[in-house]
């Protein structure tokens, strides 16, 4: 293990006539797990700020020992340890860890399916200098993701897909920000998203009665759907809505991978994902006011702005393209 102690902050207490006290302010600890670091640590001295201590481990076993440490702010794991090993550490941290962010550094475009069903909080591609890493982590930890453009684009992508696939004439009838991640309705599917420029979760919840009506509209001659089918329907809804969001964000230069939907049922059941941001909650309705779906989008990291100049490349959903 290599520990780099970076510029410890020191507070000087006391005043005239009192004894001066030196107080060590605990720094945030970054655990890097790597066989060959992809972060330009040799440029540390050029970094403009040094808010982290850094612990470097060369194996996932050693990295895993930090799982329950209350001092760790983030794990930075790169593909030099092997994608399978990185995924194993990720799963272990999901089970035993304190919910700190997991940053995956990959030299190749990462498939990420080995991490499923959850995904890393941040995906980075080398070269990464320390300033970039700190900026991304600060962004992740403070998560001020929802600018006006992002709200517009997210709303557009989600509502358009909802209207095409599930609720004709769907529109947002209420939009608000909230800190809570509990589902609004009793059947919920939550799906992670992760890319080099964005990470977060999309969560869809709907009432069972509404889902039964929706299923009958989609598959008219089928027998009444079981509870399992209703969960599947919400799962597919979350998948398609996130796909629609991905479609519009990709046009603006922001790409990401979709995870696998995780199902939660029951009112007020806790949804097992962590978010450092408030989330954007959209209540979407059709002409029938009883057809209401709540879509909750939590974005932990958005690195770059949406570039509207690429919108002409849009591919319509439902369109068939021969390859």
């Amino acid at each position, binding site marked *: 293990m290599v520990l780099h102690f970076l510029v410890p902050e020191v507070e000087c207490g006391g005043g005239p006539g009192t004894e001066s006290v030196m107080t060590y302010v605990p720094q945030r600890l970054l655990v890097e797990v790597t066989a060959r670091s992809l972060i330009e640590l040799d440029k540390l001295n050029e970094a403009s700020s040094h808010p982290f201590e850094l612990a470097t481990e060369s194996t996932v076993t050693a990295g895993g020992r930090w799982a329950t440490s209350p001092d760790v702010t983030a794990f930075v794991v790169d593909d030099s340890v092997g994608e399978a090993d990185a995924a194993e550490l990720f799963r272990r941290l999901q089970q035993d860890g304190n919910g700190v962010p997991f940053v995956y550094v990959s030299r190749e*475009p990462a498939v990420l*399916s080995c991490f*499923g069903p959850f995904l890393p909080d941040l995906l980075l591609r080398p070269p990464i200098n320390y300033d970039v890493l700190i900026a991304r982590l600060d962004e992740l930890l403070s998560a001020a993701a929802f600018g006006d453009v992002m709200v517009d684009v997210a709303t557009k992508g989600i509502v358009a*897909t909802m209207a*095409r*696939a*599930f609720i004709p004439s769907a529109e947002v009838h209420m939009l608000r920000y909230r800190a809570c991640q509990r589902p609004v309705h009793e059947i919920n599917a939550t799906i992670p998203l992760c890319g080099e420029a964005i990470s977060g979760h999309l969560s869809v919840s709907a009432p069972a009665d509404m889902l039964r009506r929706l*299923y009958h509209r*989609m*598959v*008219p*001659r*089928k027998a009444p759907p079981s509870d*399992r*089918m209703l969960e*599947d*329907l919400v*799962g*597919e809804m979350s*998948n*398609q809505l*996130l*796909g*629609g969001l*991905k*479609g519009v964000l*990709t046009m603006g230069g922001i*790409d990401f991978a*979709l995870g*696998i939907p995780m199902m939660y049922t029951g009112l007020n059941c806790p949804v097992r994902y962590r978010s450092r941001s408030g989330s954007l909650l959209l209540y979407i309705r059709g002409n029938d006011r009883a057809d209401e779906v709540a879509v909750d989008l939590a974005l932990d990291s958005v690195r770059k702005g949406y570039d509207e100049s690429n919108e002409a490349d849009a*591919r*319509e*959903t*439902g*369109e*068939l*393209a*021969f*390859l």
Partner: protein
Amino acid sequence: MIAMNHDDREHTRGMNCMSAKILVVDDSATIRHQLRACLDSAGYVVLEAENGALGLERATHEAVDLIIVDINMPVMNGLEMLEALRTVPRKGSIPAFILSTESSKSMVERGKKCGATAWIVKPFKPEILTKGIAHVLAKARGAA
């Protein structure tokens, strides 16, 4: 985009008298049911599988004329399934439509490399899907 008129529908129905078998591979039962309803009414025989591994098994051991496959699925994804199927004797040329929420150029390129015939971004439009299928099956039968 493919539009469809009345004549096209008649043509589609005529094609289906031969009861082509279509294998639908998707982990979502909702999508499988939707596809079955759409393909049944167009006169096709529908087989189902809920992941790539099961889809590969069905496509390997049964006579299938066309496959509709999702990408993101547990156990084996759709691209892996198509890659594996291309190595199975006499199964390499089965036309395959990818039906996915994925739409990025890089993913479409991967699909092409795996031998996919066509790509549709979910949600699908039934009339466009059935017209595309009729077109591809007619072409395949013409070639045979």
